[in-house]
């Protein structure tokens, strides 16, 4: 079963310098009960993709072809009212900054009651549900926490409360956009483990966005690698990390200092810049920076299957048996 299915999604932004083609032919699935990670450098379209899914594209943005299928709806065709009914109860989100999700002048308990406003439960039942999930995210003394305000909690606790609130209505899909970037290593690891545990408890799927390759490797079942608004590679985490098929994915993995077991003073980088998306090259988007460039790269690239469930958008990628 697939919870979220994106097919050939294209997103454009109109800018002074002409139309900017922010996402081109993006396709991937989020299967039931799986955690799918999206990696890519800033500007690769990760945030545009989330906004497109949530129906929150900026005023100058529009979907120009393709579909986003979720629970029998094509989200690109839903009106603002219908989208609003889905956001929260069915598709929940957690962002990098927990204070963006918490109201500083309303107690945590009241905020969590508000989230359950359509549940039909009594006040005490709502509070009991809030306490249960706060205990699950390991907030000490969860009962008393309901009366406290967001500023009374530490950064790591605030993020855990934000996660608890997102999962309170047991959504089918959780979108987590860099939820651990602002945390330190020890808290980051604790938060990932917690997220995994809750995901299994609730049985939801997670779309996890991060540029931290270590976190992706640890948490995600599947990975989607994006570059300049295109999906260049996707597969299971093991397939992509152990055997990357696209040169960009391979270079990105090499660049992580964590992959260098020997101490090196000069860290690897990918020379060149992301192309101007107002003038997208017709051929392979990564060709100008690729050290394996060949004549075949001049043509538009399609996704080549490498193995079951493992795809790369590169003419030079070879199928593996």
């Amino acid at each position, binding site marked *: 079963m697939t919870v979220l299915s994106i097919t050939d999604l294209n997103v454009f932004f109109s800018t002074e310098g002409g139309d900017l083609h922010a996402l081109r032919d993006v396709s991937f699935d989020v299967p039931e009960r799986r955690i799918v990670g999206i990696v890519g450098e800033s500007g690769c379209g990760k945030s545009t993709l989330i906004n497109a899914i949530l129906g929150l594209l900026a005023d100058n943005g529009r979907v120009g072809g393709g579909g986003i299928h979720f629970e029998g709806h094509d989200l690109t065709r839903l009106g603002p009212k219908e989208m609003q009914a889905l956001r929260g109860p069915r598709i929940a989100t957690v962002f990098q900054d927990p204070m963006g999700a918490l109201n500083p002048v309303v107690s945590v308990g009241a905020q969590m009651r508000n989230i359950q406003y359509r549940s039909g439960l009594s006040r005490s039942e709502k509070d009991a549900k809030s306490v249960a999930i706060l205990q699950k995210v390991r907030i000490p003394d969860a009962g008393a926490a309901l009366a406290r305000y967001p500023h009374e909690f*530490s950064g790591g606790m605030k993020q855990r409360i934000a996660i608890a609130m997102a999962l309170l209505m047991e959504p089918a899909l959780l979108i987590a956009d860099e939820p651990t970037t602002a945390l330190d*290593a020890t808290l980051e690891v604790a938060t990932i483990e917690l997220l995994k545990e809750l995901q299994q408890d609730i049985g939801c799927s997670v779309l996890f966005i991060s540029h931290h390759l270590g*976190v*992706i*490797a*640890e948490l995600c079942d599947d990975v989607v690698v994006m570059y300049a608004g295109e999906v260049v590679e996707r597969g299971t985490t093991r397939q992509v990390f152990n055997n990357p098929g696209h040169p960009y994915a391979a270079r*990105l993995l090499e660049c*992580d*200092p964590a992959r260098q077991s020997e101490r090196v003073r000069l*860290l690897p980088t990918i020379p060149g810049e992301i192309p101007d998306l107002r003038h997208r090259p017709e051929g392979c988007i990564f060709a100008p920076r690729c050290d394996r460039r060949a004549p075949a790269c001049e043509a538009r690239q399609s996704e080549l299957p490498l193995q079951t469930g493992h795809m790369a958008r590169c003419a030079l990628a070879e199928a593996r048996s």
Partner: protein
Amino acid sequence: MTALLEVRDLEVTFRVGPMLSRRDIKGVAGVSFDVSPGETFALVGESGSGKTTLARAINGLQGISAGSVSFDGQRIDGLSTGAMKPMRKVMSMMFQDPVGSLSPRMTVGDLVTEPFRIHGVSVDFRAETERLLNLVGLNETFADRFPHQLSGGQARRVGVARAIALNPRLIIADEPTAGLDVSVQGEVLNLLNDLRERLGLAMVIITHNLHVVHHIADRMAVMYLGRFVETGDCEQIFDAPAHPYTAALLSANPEPDPDKARNRISLPAEVPSLLARPKGCEFHTRCPWASDRCSRDAPPVVDKDARKIACHYPLQPGARPPVAEATP
């Protein structure tokens, strides 16, 4: 070799709380270290451990309540703003937020030459802009852009250009790569490293990315609640951390390898408040190895194999927590 920067028993105190129950807390509670010319010294620790406060105290942006800071043999703590100004020429600072530390109303060209104007150094601004931008890998067309037109990595490079404009002898970089992608992070670190080699810069780098520390720093200090719990040679510490907190930090480092076995030392997530520092060893509330003695007596800082460790029971290489071994 004489140290370029010498910090001795530095303390920073903050006054907190409402008027009648006002209390002092120590953001930095007595740290000492040296940085030699050409050396990279890394400060690691959780947020709230006092890393940034320490950096600001060294640079005179934050008053200190005890101890001393010397630069090139000269005391610089407690100097007046005017007396500190010439010091800032030789000791520059890169702040945490790359875009926030650039004035939104100034062009990149004005920003990178601002240090010359502040210190009254007369140079050919046009030529200097070009030189500095080239040095950090930006072309001259960037000179007319404003900060909001820059990406995070480009803003970071402008920050580096400003920090090196006056040929300082020491750069203090607070999270120089936070929020950057891995390839851009590599570029910024390579740039700093290249400058260190060519200009003989000393660097103090604050970061919580331990992989970065491993590759670029010579020596490191691990901070916990405003104190150094372990100081020493980077490679030695990575090979065999002696303080339980260091060991936990290193084991918590997520690695981009799905097949890697993770022998993690998990800590209770809650960091004690500075208002209620634990008695004895301040780490004992979270330490898997803690014994009665740890909750009673504060451990002295001991020198062991060129390392300074504040622990009653320094770990043997490869030690695992006793509790974790008992549970299958």
